């Protein structure tokens, strides 16, 4: 139980950090579309923490959660590839 508590706390901290930074960047840069996937990454980390804390590891639910990460990663990849920021375009 102690292990799960510490794991959940780490995940909540990381989730809040990602959410907070994503929100801050969205406001400062006034670019919502670029930072929106990171907002959802933070939310998914918090959701992951909740499921872990309640020890809910049902197959379909867990599959859906992991699939959310994949979709968010594809979203980030699409943003990266669509606009090549490194080339300054």
């Amino acid at each position, binding site marked *: 139980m102690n292990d799960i508590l510490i*794991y959940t706390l780490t995940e909540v901290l990381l*989730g809040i950090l990602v959410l907070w930074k994503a929100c801050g960047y969205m406001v400062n840069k006034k670019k919502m579309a670029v930072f929106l996937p990171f907002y959802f990454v933070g939310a998914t980390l918090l959701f992951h923490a909740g499921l872990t804390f309640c020890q809910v590891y049902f*197959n379909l639910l867990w599959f859906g959660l992991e699939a959310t990460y994949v979709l968010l990663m594809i979203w980030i990849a699409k943003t*990266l590839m669509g606009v090549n920021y490194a080339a300054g375009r």
Partner: protein
Amino acid sequence: MPAINRTRGKDPMKIGRVRAEEAAAKFRVPCFLAKALLVAALMIVYFFVVTSFFQGWQKAKFFDDLPDLVFATVSITLLCYVLCMKRSPGDKNLIIGLSLVSLTKLIEIPLQELQALTPGESLGLVFWEPPIIMLGLGFLFILQYFWERVK
């Protein structure tokens, strides 16, 4: 449909550049797809090799492993893409972030298989804490890259 002659009345050096740009635009996507397919094939091999050390692929935890494999495929393909791109100083954050994220997912597959050997029990904090920290840090590094790059 007849081909349009785009080279008429143009500087020969410019013609070469235009042709090179057209060729680059044409071949960029197939190259990326080839990389993605190669990485996906390597991931499938990795899955079979890793599961063979535990209960075999027939008894693998598919609901956990499949998304991890897809996640690793996407992130490693993107890492290859970024490494092939024209480099600039800010790219370091993106490379570190993508490496951390892909490494996390590669580590998680054997850990899940190991956990499946002990039903009803978790592996413990020592095993699961590093991957989640690496995942969070990886996303933070990618976020930092966007912060530096987006004008």
